[in-house]
């Protein structure tokens, strides 16, 4: 069952996944024919990005501990192996930017590497320093996407980010919010500012964005990143004792996290979801949600009903 309304682009499964023994990690039903990976277009450019990326709040904030950094590098390696390219971080996340920078250097990022970070300060001067620090920590010359974190100081930062976009140091500019906060202000900004991306909370339980923000994103050609896909894990815990409905198998979902992710990325106006994890097995599990098929509109309705009954 595939979604007819989703503006999905599919790329044939790349050799990389086969080389990594994908059959071993894919669900049994998928072993015979590797399902397609799902990509979405960034409206402003037409560039395609994988529908699952990775967040780094808490999970990659491990300081300088060599063993924990090595663990996280393994997590990042699995993201890349499974075709993921987008990693989202922020100066707010402690050492996460440094750890991602270290791991991406060790893992040799793919050609379509999509580094995403944020500026998070109300001061214009501090913003300039923070942005330069992020380039150094990530060890990149160009950021795919730079966002204003939680709308903080956007009046200072958006013009600067656009300038840097003109210079080619940043490819896309965006703004973020989460937990359903400040949606009115975000809505105003989406209408008045030329944004390439917004990041907001959208998941099976938090669907406020469907009403106004996602339609505006569609109308204005803004790509949307869904953060907190699992409500920071709370949704997975809440649903832990509830077996998935039999029809979840029709969309290739073996587990609750995959079910939750497929719901998010099957929304036609969502570009990608960025679950965070500190674990290799969870990364492997999550990346399988990036494989076709996706639920259609009718099944999405059933997914909501299932959550509400659980």
């Amino acid at each position: 069952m595939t979604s007819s309304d989703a503006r999905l682009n599919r790329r044939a499964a790349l050799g990389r996944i086969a080389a990594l023994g994908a059959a071993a990690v894919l669900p049994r039903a998928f072993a015979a024919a590797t399902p397609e990976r799902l990509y979405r277009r960034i409206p402003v450019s037409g560039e395609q990005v994988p529908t699952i990326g990775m967040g780094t709040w808490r999970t990659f904030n491990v300081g300088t501990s060599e063993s924990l950094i090595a663990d996280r590098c393994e997590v990042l390696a699995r993201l890349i192996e499974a075709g993921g390219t987008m990693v989202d971080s922020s100066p707010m996340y402690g050492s996460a930017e440094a750890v991602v920078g270290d791991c991406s250097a060790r893992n040799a990022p793919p050609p379509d590497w999509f580094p995403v970070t944020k500026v998070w300060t109300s001061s214009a001067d501090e913003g300039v320093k923070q942005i330069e620090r992020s380039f150094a920590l990530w060890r990149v010359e160009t950021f795919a996407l730079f966002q204003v974190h939680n709308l903080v100081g956007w009046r200072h930062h958006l013009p600067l980010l656009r300038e840097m976009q003109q210079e080619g140091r940043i490819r896309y500019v965006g703004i973020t919010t989460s937990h359903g906060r400040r949606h009115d202000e975000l809505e105003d900004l989406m209408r008045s500012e030329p944004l390439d991306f917004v990041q907001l909370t959208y998941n099976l339980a938090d669907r406020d964005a469907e009403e106004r923000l996602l339609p505006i994103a569609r109308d204005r050609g803004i790509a949307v990143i869904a953060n907190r896909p699992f409500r920071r894990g709370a949704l997975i815990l809440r649903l832990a004792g509830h077996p998935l409905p039999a029809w979840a198998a029709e969309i290739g979902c073996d587990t609750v996290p995959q079910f939750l992710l497929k719901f998010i990325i099957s929304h036609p106006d969502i570009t990608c979801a960025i679950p965070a994890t500190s674990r290799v097995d969870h990364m492997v599990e999550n990346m399988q949600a990036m494989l076709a098929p996706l639920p259609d509109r009718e099944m999405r309705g059933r997914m909501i009903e299932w959550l509400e009954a659980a």
Partner: protein
Amino acid sequence: MLKAAVADYIPYTGEALRALVGTYNAAIWPLQFGFLAALLAVIIGTGGRVGTLCRLAPLVLAACWAWCGLVFYQRHFALLDWSAHHAGWLFCGQAALLVLAAATGTTVPQNRITRIVGMVVMLFALGAVPLIQWLSGLPLETFALAGVTPAATVLFTAGWLAGGSGRWWLWPVPFAWSLYGFVTGWALGYSPDMLPLPVIVILLVIVFLRRPAAANS
């Protein structure tokens, strides 16, 4: 659920915190022994009511608080949490207050009961806290020790204060930190940070009950 909600606002995990303490301990090794020896001298001074040691005690504690503020928080912990800078300055503020306490008179403990209780707490901070960490299976190199890490330093200081410093204005910072430590420690499953609050509450009750009669009127 509440635990997860609190943890949601903490940018690091208990695992990362333990690893950070491990890295920090390795970086400052073997200075831990210097601090432990100095704190032992404070206990001996309090127990034996040795005037010189008693007068030096607030300076020793000031050094511990300043070290925790500048080295533990500002240099190491700030890697994990930007708010560590604030905590660092708070610790430096308490260090300044302790210096002020040293500069403004004698601190020889008078009340026998509170002195004994205070000594027990200081000994607990010095010896039992590492023991608890050992019993809870934490690796030796990640032990949070008195003098160089906040929780055990707060605990030790509370013991010293209960023993009879007589200065109420030295209590608010340890008490505020113990509240913060309890909430974060509970949310992250990090036991060392949870210890100071219950102990400080008990100490404050004892100190209140044993306050000098003149203060009652």
